[in-house]
């Protein structure tokens, strides 16, 4: 503490003052350094790359040529259509399935529900590579799934990996198996935080099951629902590993070609500039969709409130 009789600060006071001024910067420095090295620099570098074409060590500036090429490329259009299709399929099937399971396993009437909860969540722990390997074996021409279906239809020939429509089904199926349990856990947590008194009040008002679900449960879990829709959309738009591993390429008729696998195709032929430009287009699309979703859902909430 500074002495009233000596206006000149002591060395200790000066050191204290310096550390007080710089300590916050030191504390945030590790984060800032890591952020700059591993996020900001790669982002800026990829932006720079997107205006270039690369071949080995050489780079040539091409301005916006990569973007104009991409916007006119049929293959990217196809990949975008596929990606949007997969994203919609995930949202349409994953959210209701996860919510349904959560409602079921939230009920105290279900015996051994902790075992079921773990069983449904377990696929998420093993990751996409493992799931792809399992589904490759499961859905082969003469694999367990087709052999099971042949018990009912002996002449059945479902070609999960070579028919473009069934191939899409295989991706959705594998993805759901992987992600439904994950969504279920979130919904379970949300369901348990819904105020019990609201259910009791609705019982008093004579509300039926559907009315309670629609007017109490859904508003109660809305933040998690919004989160699941948002992360599901982003995850769907970034889909890559599953179709890539299931088909070892774009798949039958390009059924496995997503925007990220299209991007990876440019990396495989050594053209990093077009790959970076594809990445930026995807990022722009994700940001736009996310803002739109947040606005729509935020607007709905405001209207409800």
């Amino acid at each position: 503490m500074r002495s009233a009789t000596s206006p000149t600060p002591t060395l200790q006071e000066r050191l204290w003052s310096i550390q007080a001024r710089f300590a916050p910067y030191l504390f945030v420095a590790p984060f800032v350094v890591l952020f700059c090295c591993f996020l900001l620099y790669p982002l800026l570098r990829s932006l720079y790359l997107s205006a270039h074409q690369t071949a080995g060590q050489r780079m040539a500036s091409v301005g916006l040529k990569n973007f104009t090429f991409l916007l006119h490329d049929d293959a990217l259009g196809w990949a975008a259509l596929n990606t949007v299709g997969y994203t919609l399929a995930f949202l349409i099937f994953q959210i209701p399935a996860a919510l349904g399971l959560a409602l079921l396993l939230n009920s105290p009437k279900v015996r051994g529900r902790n075992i079921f909860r773990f069983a449904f969540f377990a696929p998420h722990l093993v990751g996409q590579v493992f799931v792809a390997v399992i589904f490759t074996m499961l859905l082969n021409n003469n694999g367990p799934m087709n052999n099971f279906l042949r018990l009912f239809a002996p002449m059945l020939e479902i070609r999960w990996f070579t028919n473009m429509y069934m191939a899409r089904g295989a991706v959705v199926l594998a993805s759901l198996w992987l992600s439904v349990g994950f969504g279920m856990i979130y919904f379970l947590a949300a369901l348990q935080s819904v105020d019990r008194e609201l259910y009791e009040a609705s019982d008093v008002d004579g509300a039926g099951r559907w009315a309670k679900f629609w007017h109490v449960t859904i508003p109660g879990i809305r933040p998690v629902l919004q989160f699941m829709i948002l992360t599901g959309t982003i995850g769907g738009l970034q889909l890559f590993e599953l179709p890539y591993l299931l088909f070892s390429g774009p798949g039958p008729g390009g059924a496995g070609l997503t925007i990220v696998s299209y991007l990876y195709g440019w990396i495989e032929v050594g053209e990093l500039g077009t790959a970076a430009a594809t990445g930026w287009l995807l990022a722009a699309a994700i940001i736009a969709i996310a803002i739109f979703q947040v606005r729509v859902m935020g607007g709905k909430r405001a209207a409800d409130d």
Partner: protein
Amino acid sequence: MPFHLGKPILVMMICGIGAGIASRVTMQPDARADLEIWCFSDQNYKAATGRGKLPNNVALREIAERELGKTVSVKLVQFRAMSARLASLFMSNSRGPELPDLVELEVSGVARYFRPTVGEVGLLPLNDLLEKHGWLGKIQERRLASWSKDGVIFGIPMDVHPAMIAYDDVAFRQAGIDLASSKTWDEFIENGLKFQAYWNKPGQRARRAFEMADANATTLVTMLVQRGINVVDQNGGVHLSDEKTIDTLVYYLRMMIGPRSIGFPSSVGNEAFSQDLPAGSVSAFVAPDWRLKYIKDNAPGEYAGRFRMMPLPRWPDSPHRTSTAGGTSVGIPRNVRDPELSFRLLERMYLSPEAITARTGTNYILPAVKAAWANPKWDEPDPYFGGQPVRRLIAGLAPEVPPRYISPASLVAEVQLAMVLVESLSYVRSHPNVDEATLRLKCQALLNDAQERVKRQVAHGSFE
């Protein structure tokens, strides 16, 4: 004394610190050997290091160390990881000890290295070294095509991979068919149809004769290469819409769908042998030499002795009875410390008689060094293939193997070809009575579009 963050955090911290200390204590010194090899093939790794049960239990590394007076280390790197690491090293113009002295290259991953101009490819041109050390002419010349750009050789092929047909002879004989008598594709189809007519009974799942991909262009490309067509040639010319390509595609479609259909797509991976073969989904396969080991390892035990091998049936306009699929080569990074020493290591590890014996002892892969084809051991009858001298049959076809050219454009073109195949199959399925002329026009239109797309993509990324 209680830990203020709680017991779980304390336990995790103790575990973390313990693991850190343990890994530091047990860490091996990572001193780089004088020479380093990166390989992705487990078989080659075992041959190089003497691990695994190879016939003569030779460790090629030790022989090389003795002869060159240098220490040699061999690293097994997963193929995709190696591809990414090499591309990164080449792009950053790395030099010296960062680079391996020798590196194995796989045909499906090599295209990306060939994107720069010849003078800037990250691999060392090998023409002069091959000539200086007397190897030109001793290696199957056409196999060099896959590893070359504009006549400059960047990889020395380790294999030839002649494609043949492996078939269940017992099942065909039971139907009264000697499949090996099929000299042309037309005869092969006739025999396939007879086979199916014999085996297929109403109310049962159809038994099919021949494995043909309907979702990727693997089998189609093999047939095109046999006919002398590379979808992208050595000069970068795209041949997707050539007359022969259209012909082959139409022929292929007729083999898959309609009254002359004998083809069926098999399962992914080795389930083709372990599941589809016993289920009768397929009874004959296009089999490059590398695939024979997979048949032997995965087909159920009762198939031992039932298989036979035959050359591919001929096209009317091509002399080749074989094609090729897959391939591995060895390259030297351009900025390696001592190219001459690397090449001498390559000779000892990949081209010497000991190296070839060690690598081919447990499989059927024919080496690209022509002198090795004369090995009398290769005349021995193979009980798994009913006493056929399979290796001799493979070697007999090796001089005929057509060249296969690889470039970034060929990767793009093959993807487009696969898309055309799926679309045209879908067209034939929805128009079962389509006549030859209409089908041809449809295929031509699809291939023309695909050719334009390939040209656009190639033009977009062209540095030439």
